[in-house]
């Protein structure tokens, strides 16, 4: 009997021992299959470079989702201004309609998506900077990469501070548990954010190569891009001297020149050897392209603003962000920019309607088959003459977004010059811009430069924020028929959802 028991134990032990031995050392430690964990990702020797690339890819945030410089940012800025109306059919997309009419509230999801997109991008920049700082890359490479990340962070904070006013100042990658801490959820003042932006852009200006230098690549931020944005920041700060110096540095670098044909600036390919993507005038531009995933684009940027049909033809888009008649009338006679900025839909004429023939030969029908009267030509991407995704998906047209052009830099320089009593330089650079558009010379006063900014940068998301900077948003927009309230509408409301999630720590802007 005793033997039996020993046998029993032996037999019990065998399967259990077998079970234990059969299992590998870490039977319960199972890594995700075919998915990269953060830990694994950081073992990649190229991780730092890729992390900075990951920050660039936040420039693609778009569609109706969170965004940085994509579709909803475009709509909010252009529609709020006197440049554009909401467009599409009257009932379509009420959230954008609210902004058009200045009836927007803090519950409008567009604001939440702009807030979320920018902060998500900022956090990815912070993570990249953190990893770079801890890493052991060669100092110049490290500084260049950190410079690129800080350039983008500066650009994003610049958007945020102009759009919302002061926002939480976050320069680290916080843990989830810190989400509702006072430190993170208290809005910094606009001045504090501006200080951070200047610090970031200055670091970038100091550490990035010039366009065309060996260390530079098309699409990456350059010294010129950092200096241009810094000049623009100083313009908003009314630090005319700094704005002048920085824009002057960009001019004297000699790396940029105006594209002689304004039409060619917004094309994918050069026209008669000028213009196209990343042309001589391009200082910073969102790089898009055709790839298998069809995801190297800013979704809906082009299609969302494309001409919308009323049936009967295969239309080009959703028809949002339609240029106003006010913008069309803002151009002087003979200004070549008018027809390069606005697609005009021709009226239906009994018997013989020609419609509108676009630069690529595509013929839009006349008004009876088209929803709106005008569309944004600068967002147009040709189905026929320019690259298309394999699936031909209209929502993912590879349209580069021109974020900073040399023409704008010249106007920043001109305004800074005008404000530092350098009328000669102001007039010279203003007329450089005007003459490209077939316009007679003018005098470089601040008022003339402001007027020039509108027509030169029409439908490029500058007008509303520029009007606020100029301090005449209320006067201009009320004259345009908008319910703009001074002291309130200069900034947009902090998203209510974010205030709720901060347990009330985020304070709302006045008037909302």
């Amino acid at each position, binding site marked *: *009997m*005793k033997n*039996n*028991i020993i046998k*029993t*134990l032996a*037999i019990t032990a065998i399967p259990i021992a077998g*079970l*234990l031995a059969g*299992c590998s*050392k*870490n*039977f319960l*430690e*199972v*890594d*995700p*299959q*075919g*998915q*990269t*964990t*953060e830990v694994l*990702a*950081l073992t*990649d020797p190229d991780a730092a470079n*890729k*992390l*900075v*690339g*990951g920050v660039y*890819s936040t*420039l693609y945030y778009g569609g109706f989702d969170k965004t940085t410089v994509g579709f909803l940012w475009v709509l909010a800025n252009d529609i709020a201004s006197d440049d554009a109306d909401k467009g599409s059919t009257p009932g379509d997309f009420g959230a954008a309609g609210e902004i058009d009419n200045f009836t927007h509230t803090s519950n409008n999801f567009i604001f939440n998506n702009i*807030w*979320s997109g920018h*902060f998500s991008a900022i*956090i*990815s920049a*912070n*993570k990249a900077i953190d990893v770079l700082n801890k890493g052991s890359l060669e100092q110049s490479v490290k500084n260049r990469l950190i410079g690129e990340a800080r350039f983008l962070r500066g650009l994003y904070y610049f958007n945020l501070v102009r759009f919302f006013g002061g926002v939480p100042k*976050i320069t680290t*990658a*916080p843990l*989830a548990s810190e*989400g*509702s801490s006072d430190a*993170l*959820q208290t809005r910094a003042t606009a001045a504090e954010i501006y200080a951070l932006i200047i610090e970031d852009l200055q670091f970038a200006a100091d550490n990035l190569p010039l366009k065309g230098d060996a260390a530079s*690549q*098309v699409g*990456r931020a350059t010294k010129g891009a950092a200096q241009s944005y810094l000049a623009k920041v100083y313009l908003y700060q009314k630090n005319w001297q700094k704005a002048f110096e920085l824009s002057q540095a960009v001019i004297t670098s000699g790396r940029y020149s105006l594209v002689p044909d304004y039409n060619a600036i917004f094309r994918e390919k050069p026209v008669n050897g000028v213009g196209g993507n990343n042309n001589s005038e391009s200082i910073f531009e969102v*790089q898009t*392209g055709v*790839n*298998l*995933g069809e995801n*190297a684009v800013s979704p809906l940027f082009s299609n969302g603003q494309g001409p919308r049909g009323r049936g009967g033809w295969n239309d080009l888009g959703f028809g949002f962000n339609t240029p106003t008649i006010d913008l069309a009338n803002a151009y002087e006679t003979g200004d070549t920019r008018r027809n390069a900025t606005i697609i005009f839909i021709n009226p239906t004429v009994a018997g013989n309607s020609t419609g509108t023939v676009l630069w690529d030969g595509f013929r839009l029908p006349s008004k009876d088959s088209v929803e709106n009267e005008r569309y944004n030509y600068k967002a147009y991407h040709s189905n026929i003459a320019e690259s298309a995704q*394999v699936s031909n998906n209209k929502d993912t047209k590879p349209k580069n977004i021109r974020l900073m052009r040399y023409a704008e830099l010249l106007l920043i320089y001109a305004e800074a010059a005008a404000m530092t009593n350098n009328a000669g330089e102001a007039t010279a650079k203003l007329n450089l811009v005007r003459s490209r558009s077939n316009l007679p010379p003018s005098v470089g006063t601040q008022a003339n430069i402001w007027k020039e900014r509108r027509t030169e940068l029409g439908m490029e998301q500058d007008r509303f924020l520029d009007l606020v900077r100029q301090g005449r948003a209320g006067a201009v927009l009320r004259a345009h028929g908008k319910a703009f309230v001074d002291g309130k509408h200069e900034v947009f409301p902090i998203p209510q959802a*974010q205030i709720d*999630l901060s347990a009330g720590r985020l304070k709302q802007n006045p008037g909302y």
Partner: protein
Amino acid sequence: MNHFLKGLIQSSLKTTISTFAVFLLFFPISLMARQAPVTGTVTGAGGTPVNAASVTVKGTSRGTSTNAAGKFTITVAPSDTLVVTAVGFQNLEVPVGTQTDLTVSLAASNRELEQVIVVGYGTQRRRDLTGSVASVSGSELSRQPVLTATQAVQGKVAGVQVISSGDPNALPVIRIRGTGTMLAGANPLYVVDGVISDDIRNINSADITSMDILKDASATAIYGMRAANGVILITTKRGRAGKMVVSYDATLGVKEATKLVNMAGAKQYAGYVNEASVYYGSGDSIVTAATLASGGNTDWYNEILKKGFFQNHNVSVAGGSDKVNYFLSAGYLSDEGIIRTNDFKRLTIRNNNDYKITNNFKISTLLSYSRSTVRNVDLGAFNVAYRAAPYVIAKQNGKYGNTSLSNNVGNPILDQDKNDNSGKGDRFQGNVVGEYKPITWLTLRSSFGVDKNNFRSISYGYKYANVGPDNVFLTSGSNQLRDKSSLTVTESEGNRWVWDNTATAAKRFGDHNLTLLAGITAEDIRTRSIGGSRVDVPQDKDQWYLNAGSTIGARNFNDGDRSTRNSYLSRLNYNYKDKYFLTGTIRADASSRLPANNRWGYFPSVGAGWVLSNEGFMGDQKTFNNLKLRASYGKVGNDGIPSNLFVPLATVNLPYFFNGQEVLNLRLEELADPSLKWEVTREVNVGLDFSLIKNRLSGTVDFYDRKTSDALVRINIPAILGDPNNEYITNAATFTNKGVEVALNWQDRIGSDWRYNLGVNLAYNRNRIEKLNGGQALSSGSVGGQGFTTKSDNGQPIGSFFLWEVEGIFQTEAEVASSAQPGAKPGDLRYRDINKDKVINADDRVYQGSYQPNITYGINGGLSFKALDLSFGGYGTGGGKIYNGKKAARGDFRDNIETSVVNNRWTPGNTNTNVPRANLNELPASTYFLEKGDFFRINNLTVGYTLPRRLLDKFSMQSLRVFATAQNLATFTSYSGFTPEINNGGTLDGGIELAIYPTTRTFAFGVNVGF
């Protein structure tokens, strides 16, 4: 190894196991003296031998069991007393005395109480249970012409809600005692012959001996880790020693839709939409007289549906000898469903063998293979057929009607013809068990189970044009077309192994009866899939390979998942004098799905039973034949979450273009909860079992209170944290399910020819979200352009409808003027302005109840007269709500409407109605679309006739029964849609009828033959 040892050391079970080992080592061993071999025969009623009866020497551990002839041999002393026990018989003690050849005649016991219940890693007699366990016999399950056994259990067990589907290949949705989770899986755990499974569509109901459903935490805690939703144990058939039994069963029948919704005909439709245009639109006719005259009058449901053929054949061979028992079966089921082009076929083969190597060592193999072939259909066709304009001709002279021109929906029959979405599955499930009994009271068992599941799906979309010479439409143009053929091929593979090792000691010490189980198990689950898609693949089926397609736009994918589990378990059953019962279990579970710091979960339970009817003070009463009180408490877990929820993943392969070249980049942005833990359910159960009137009436009543805490819930997090979707999943919420279950059974006979039985069961459950603890109230159930329709928030049942409440219909302009809807017109729905702010907006939504029924009930009965038999089953639910999604998703003003909407619509002449005026726009989400989901259905009615023996002899048949059966014969419900059973598996959006395969009705006949 390290982790196992660590686990052992950390685990309190370690103590249990070592105690058990010590217990084995030092157990006192009786000395034996003056003994001689004695033989005997154990018989039951009528002198039939009783196989596998246990014969032990009272007060010792010595014993043996009888063979197939009821014979046993045991060495005893004359002073010993033998205790003879056998399943289905009352225990008997026989003093040996001078006898050397004993004949022991056992009296049958109360059958139900002696029924052997599979309880997980062992069995128990029903009378010994302290938890809530329900059983259904295999013969009850296989009687119904349905695919899965769980479908057949509908209405038979109190507290088990089975939501069926008409889809031939559906796995019914099962909810045991309500919904206890929002984001982890809500389905019960299936255990087939001891092997854990999550899909039982490979199991042929004809192969099932019994299905046992563990409901309360005391019963389920032995399966701790995923027991929170209940456990369904399936035991398949084995051979028995004796004559070979060959049987054949066949069922053939026809399936059809149980109920159709009557849609408006062409003229009625035109009248309605034109009236709406006059009232709300331009006034122009939307459908002109000319259009009507040139069109048809199509009933689209007629076009997309069919009557499907159903057949099921099973053949089996069972038998055995002293050494080997075998069971071999093959089954073939085909079911065409009720939707055109739908088809399903399943072949199953099972071989269960037991090999008795020595008297105390047995090996069993339980092997099954199933092959299924399915052609799936797009259930969206149900919605499309609802919407498609009736004046469009479906198909004529080989050309299809163009519904995209009429109202922007695809022609559903063209869609059916031009898509071929087929799949083929091969599944092998097997289990090898070794069982060693070194001494009579100890059983060592090791079981290794594997489940290999391969599935290949091929989806082909035929190319077709809408213009030009190859135009397939009667009228060309618009947007239904496919200019390139497309092919998607996916091969997926699931592999699982489970290794269980248990030791069970069962011993009686005088009046004390003790069973102790201890075990260790490990499990590994892997899935992987690989596939790709191509366009421009030739339409010949022999060309449906990826290589036959164009390389332009080619896509390939390959992914996988793996998780592992390791557990220690133990159970103690104790009873004293068969009066007092105690069950204690504990299971320690570790799951790779949880982070190392929270990986181990400990799930204890305790249950007690008191058989009052065995007490002396009950001795004189004649009312109760059995009266037993049970109480239990237990804690169980749920790890039914995705594998890597706690691991922060990098976002990889993010493209950006530098120097015109695509570069793939990386972001670290995902926030995960690094301390994710088990969802834990605690349950108290109090129950009463009784039988009365000479066991004719028996019944069970249970009260339970289940509380799930640390339930996973999404938490919105501030955008400044940078998480991609600004939310993360953590343990926060608390839910409760409280309820009562009652089951009563009556069985009796009248004279010698009539027998009958009747069973009713009823369950009440109340589900509630007690606390979200900072979690987000989850909105779900999006319908068309209406947005979400449900919201799961504090104090409400999970998946509650959250809608505007319709107060009535505006009758006059004056009513409109004084209302919160200034833009409305007479005939429009008037919504309740809850906060009286004169605006109807999101703040006026109100909770309107949930899809979850609070009452489920069943009624089952049988009647036999001589060779005739009749059985029926019915099932019903009450208190659940259904959102009529098809009606609500009428998004285009040219969409068709139901006949009843047209007939009852508000007009100045028909003001006493609750149907609004003819309208153009999609109506907002409101109670107008919410209906009661209550129903009662006659699930099954079967009439059979068993042929007299004398007729069979010449065909050498043992038995022959012919039968006719009707499944889902009649449904009684006020719900206006296709089916009150919404099988979409959702916990948050369970009651929305959209793209649902409605329950079908089957009429069939068949034979059962035994050779």
